[in-house]
């Protein structure tokens, strides 16, 4: 059963190898002559000021939280999608109730302005 996943492990190993190989290739052959100006953050030629990473807009957090909610919804819909023919009408009704409950939350977030960007 699990041996079906072995090819995925093999290709993952090769992909990891390729990734590091390319980085090492560039490290070996590329010149490295850092100066103070060169290793300053790039800000279109202006003199950099302030920290590079600063506090971010709260909208990003809201989107992340909503994403977790609805991504899990997708994970719940997937198994139903595979066998919904066998489940028939009862399964459809139950899935409808599940989706409606979640969509109420979606409409609430929409009305509260969580999806607005400025």
């Amino acid at each position, binding site marked *: 059963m699990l041996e079906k996943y072995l090819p995925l492990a093999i290709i*993952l190993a090769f992909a990891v190898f390729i990734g590091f190989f390319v980085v090492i290739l560039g490290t070996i052959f590329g010149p490295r002559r850092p100066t103070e100006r060169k290793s300053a953050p790039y800000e279109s030629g202006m003199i950099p000021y302030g920290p590079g990473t600063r506090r971010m807009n709260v909208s990003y957090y809201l989107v992340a939280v909503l994403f977790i909610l609805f991504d899990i919804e997708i994970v719940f819909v997937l198994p139903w999608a595979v066998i919904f023919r066998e489940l028939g009408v009862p399964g459809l009704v139950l899935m409808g109730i599940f989706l409606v409950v979640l969509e109420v939350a979606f409409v609430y977030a929409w009305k509260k302005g969580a999806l607005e960007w400025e």
Partner: protein
Amino acid sequence: MDGAMILEWVIKSIFLILVMTGGFAYVTLYERKVLARIQVRIGPNRAGPFGVLQPVADGIKLIFKEELVPAKADKLIFTLAPVLTVIPALIITAVVPWGTEVTLFGRTIKLYLADINIAVLYLMAVTSISIYGIALAGWSSNNKYATLGGLRATAQMISYELALGFAMIVPVMMAGSMSLVDIVESQKPVWFVFVQPLAFLIYFIAALAEINRSPFDMPEAEQELTAGYHTEYSGMKFALFFMAEYIKMIAISMIGSSLFLGGYRGPFVDQLPALGPLYLFIKVAIVLFVIIWIRATLPRIRYDRLMQFGWKVLFPLALLNVFVTGVVLILVGG
């Protein structure tokens, strides 16, 4: 399971990775050529006949470029982020079938690396992982443009992933299986794009946003963010981001072809299974052409509009499409 089987998997893995990296090199050339033709230019034509050696020249140039690491960057994450971006791109197509099976050297070889029964879930999981690399690249550069670009990319990708996920559920419902081999085989009578045009459209738009392609290339909007999350990257580390982006282009074309356009299916493929990879290649080339055509034609969408489009139009539409498909298939029968 025996040694020969493992050897076969190793050969197939190497082959797939070579195809993806070689494909990446030639998709860059393909894109430049097509863009040039659309803009009534000729495009690269100096390195080799018709410029076919151009990607090689670009690669060699990038190897010998100096790699800058900003002094205030988080060095470890800064180095790992491009690797973390390219790995999901390389492994995502492992579940896409190239054909049924062929006999080669007296041995029956299946033309796919892995046929797992949760292939669609695997696709969704791997696309989610690729977001980490971009978010970390933006954050670890300690650069204002890079941080903003990385944040925008993350928010955009997770928003469109919902619509993408629901669009990918529709072929699963039609086929009654998550395995891509089963999905392709169940498109024998008719391709799903003809039964589910809306799902295909949603898949295509969401996938374009997922890989940050034009017109959704907001994270890399040159005019306001220089190069977005990879502003500080140069040399081979930059090449890895570039590689990931183009391999993802090939990957969404392959996945889209398998889910909606009949994958390796075409005329006479049952009699001659070796035609399968050829049909898949033709379909991928056509989808890639459309992606490049869109880049040449459409202007970039404003960021707030882009997010609202994803959440307020695509997501409800995709959800509704899944449910209506369920109702129709059960009540009408299918």
